[in-house]
């Protein structure tokens, strides 16, 4: 019994490194998407984006002939389920690159990714913790962090009206509070007066006190953070009722078409920052490519949101990192992929974003758009603003 046991053990130990080496030859991406839960709309679009990029890359020959494998799981936007899914996918497919569903999951797994898993990792988040190459070189964002988005908006405000009264309106969650401290610092540095900070639950029905507080403090600009659609529309509508003449701005997750549809005739009141071109900007070469692909493969889909664009850009970077790592000694290892990531400078993505240079593991660019109630689209009111 013992002899057989040792033989089996030896066989497994022999196979072990062999199989790992074999697994490493197949470029594999595993992603945890929030298919159910509050961010389900983002999960569905994001997964479609990753699938599309992988399919496009495989159609064009893959990574020097090797086809990229892509597997996903539903994290239900719950940390426990997400982390369990992460470990399950890692154990099953041995990927070199992974993608997470939320800020919470990223924070929980960060230390383990650094010491144990060593996979290149990004997520549906724009927290500054994921853009810290010294603390954790494996984490990166294909987007500006929330703090950087605030910087873009505040820069825009300073150009329009220096010394203006600014208010932050954010949700009582991690998502909402994350960039506020940095935002306060930036206001001081740029000479803007932060006169009010309003907090509300996501989906609050009554935001009267917040609106009245902003009116009393004569707020000129109000920046939203931590919401997707409500209560932003309710705040903007009710501010008109109460006579608050402020301009409203928002960050990535709220700068979406669905907000414009809710605002109706008030769409001009909202200005947002985002790092990607929109689906309806047909003159952008990459957007044209996405539109052709979508109409061919998913004829019923009419629109792709910004969550799609974010994941699209992230996966383009993943594919590029695979290509560069393939040329390095050792192939697709986490450390090679990190080196590949750092080497990305002025990478052309056909107008989806300006040519990408990774700085401090994020891409600090943004563009300001204003809503247009007649066309129900966003019009760009600035050029690409770079924060480096």
């Amino acid at each position: 019994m013992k002899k057989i046991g040792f033989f089996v053990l030896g066989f497994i130990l022999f196979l072990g490194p062999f199989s790992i080496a074999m697994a490493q030859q197949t470029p594999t991406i595993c992603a945890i998407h929030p298919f159910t839960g509050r961010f389900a709309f983002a999960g569905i679009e994001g997964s479609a984006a990753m699938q599309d990029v992988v399919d496009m890359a495989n159609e064009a020959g893959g990574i020097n002939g090797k086809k990229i494998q892509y597997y996903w799981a539903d994290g239900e936007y719950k940390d426990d389920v997400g982390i369990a899914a992460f470990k399950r996918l890692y154990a099953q497919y041995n990927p070199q690159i992974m993608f997470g569903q939320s800020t919470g999951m990223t924070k929980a797994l960060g230390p383990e990714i650094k010491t144990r898993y060593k996979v290149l990792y990004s997520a549906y988040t724009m927290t500054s913790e994921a853009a810290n190459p010294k603390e954790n070189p494996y984490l990166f964002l294909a987007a500006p962090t929330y703090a950087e988005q605030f910087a873009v908006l505040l820069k825009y405000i300073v150009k329009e009206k220096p010394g203006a009264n600014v208010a932050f309106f954010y949700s009582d969650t991690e998502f909402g509070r994350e960039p506020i401290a940095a935002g306060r610092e930036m206001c001081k540095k740029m000479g803007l007066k932060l006169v009010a900070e309003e907090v509300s639950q996501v989906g609050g029905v009554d935001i009267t006190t917040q609106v009245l507080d902003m009116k009393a403090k004569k707020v000129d600009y109000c920046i939203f953070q931590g919401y997707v659609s409500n209560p932003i529309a309710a705040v903007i509508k009710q501010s008109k009722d109460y006579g608050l003449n402020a301009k409203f701005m928002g960050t990535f997750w709220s700068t979406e078409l669905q907000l414009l549809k809710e605002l109706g005739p008030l769409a001009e009141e909202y200005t947002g920052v985002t790092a990607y071109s929109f689906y309806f900007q047909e003159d952008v070469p990459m957007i044209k490519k996405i539109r052709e692909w979508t109409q061919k493969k998913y004829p019923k889909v009419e629109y792709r949101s910004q969550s799609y664009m974010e994941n699209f850009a992230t996966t383009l970077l993943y594919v590029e990192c695979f290509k560069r790592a393939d040329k390095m000694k050792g192939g697709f290892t986490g450390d090679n992929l990190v080196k590949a990531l750092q080497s990305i400078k002025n990478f052309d993505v056909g107008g989806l974003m300006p040519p990408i240079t990774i700085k401090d593991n994020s891409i600090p660019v943004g563009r300001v758009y204003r809503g247009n109630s007649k066309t129900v689209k966003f019009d760009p009111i600035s050029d690409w603003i770079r924060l480096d």
Partner: protein
Amino acid sequence: MDFSILIQVIVAGLATGGVYGLIALGFVLIYKATSVLNLAMGEFMTLGAFICFTALTIVHVPFWIAFAITVIFAILLGIAIEPLILRPLIGEPIISVIMVTIGLGAILRGLMYMIWNPTYRAFPQIFPPKPFNLGFAVVPSGLFWGFVFAVITTVLFIFIFKFSRTGVAMRATANDQQAALSMGVSVKKVFALSWSFGAIAAVIGGIVIGNISGINIYMGDVGLAVLSVIILGGLDSIGGAILGGFIVGILQNLAGLYIDPLVGGGAKDVAPFFIVLIILMIRPYGLFGKVIIERV
């Protein structure tokens, strides 16, 4: 002390309280007859909002017809739930029934996801968007109409319960099921009807909230804040539901006005629960709930 802001805040609180009261009404109607706390109320609300939305945007009927369709749907929902969920659980501890309502909520959520996908949607404009101007205060259109609906629905139900035969039958069943049965009241029908009434209140609440803040399949989370309203008003008092709603709405806004700046926000949402704890220490059955006197 700026009185105009205070009055404005109180008026807005009153209006929001009306909306809360509507959903609280749904809880109370079901509890009154069947002693069940229906934790799937949020999903009923969302379902109502989606049915109305579909009727308005896909079938393109005018609002009154969409509203009627939604109400009929609510009645059918109540009638369907009674034999499927309540009858098999007669006699079981009440907590099992509450758990079943939670399971029911999960089923409804999954079904709604499959039928309407999870994007956020704007509700088509059904009320005139101009705010209602009272002179000393302004009430935004969505809140004002929500308040109107809430008051009309509450008064309607109070009349039904007090003066109609069905209402009396329901009160009898809530009081003593055996006695009601022996008087010829069909307890099964009363249960089904009370769930239908609760569903009607919920779907109206859903339409109102959808109008204010847009719809998505997770909008039912508001249902939790309303639990503090029903405790305040008393679990089995219809008038208490709407009055509790007003009180909570006003107190929330006062907390938002005075306490939020001190703690950096968020006090508005937790204030109703503080109030609930205090009220319960003084009046353990809520302000207007039926006091259960236990005799040995």
